[in-house]
């Protein structure tokens, strides 16, 4: 009974996280702000539904079943790669089009990109 309640609560948390991050995707005003929104779903949404699946199937099969966690691990490994690639592409395109880009985090002057000498 407690297990059922826990699974139900985790499912609802996951759905709420997906909804919140989609609303963020819709309402934030800049692309570089919008990139933050799916992270809620990538972390809270996938972790809570992964935990819900582990709890549900462990109770159903009377043993610890962890293979659902593979999906969560794959999502956690692949999300930063996509994000970095997309952010670099967006920076490149914004510079090309002359749009405003966010300031660099370091206050010093940015080091110009030089090709490595062979």
């Amino acid at each position: 009974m407690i297990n059922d309640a826990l699974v139900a609560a985790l499912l609802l948390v996951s759905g709420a996280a997906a909804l919140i991050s989609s609303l963020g995707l819709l309402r934030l005003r800049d692309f570089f702000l919008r990139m933050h929104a799916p992270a809620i779903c990538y972390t809270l949404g996938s972790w809570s539904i992964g935990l819900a699946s582990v709890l549900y199937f462990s109770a159903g099969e009377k043993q610890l079943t962890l293979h659902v966690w593979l999906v969560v691990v794959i999502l956690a490994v692949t999300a930063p790669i996509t994000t970095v690639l997309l952010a670099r592409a967006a920076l490149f395109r914004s510079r090309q089009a002359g749009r405003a880009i966010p300031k660099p985090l370091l206050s010093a002057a940015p080091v110009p990109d030089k090709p490595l000498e062979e």
Partner: protein
Amino acid sequence: MTLIGFAVTTALLLYSIAICVAMVRLFRGPHAQDRILALDFIFLVATLMMLALAIRYDSSMYFEGALLMALFGFVSSAAMAKFLLRGEVIE
């Protein structure tokens, strides 16, 4: 209806609303990178939806689907971001 059944139905409903809201961004997005971000998010929510369906139908057949969905989402988003960056996918 049991507690888990109600929760799964509600979660699937919330996921569907999330996909519909992301579709608005997909069609409206001012630049190509907004559309790729929305598509990546839709792939993610579809993956989570597969996991919810696994609980709904009490079958572990859906995990392979979720795994494939996660991998294809990653590959397609990375390929499209690479295309925006370079103008070609494989160089």
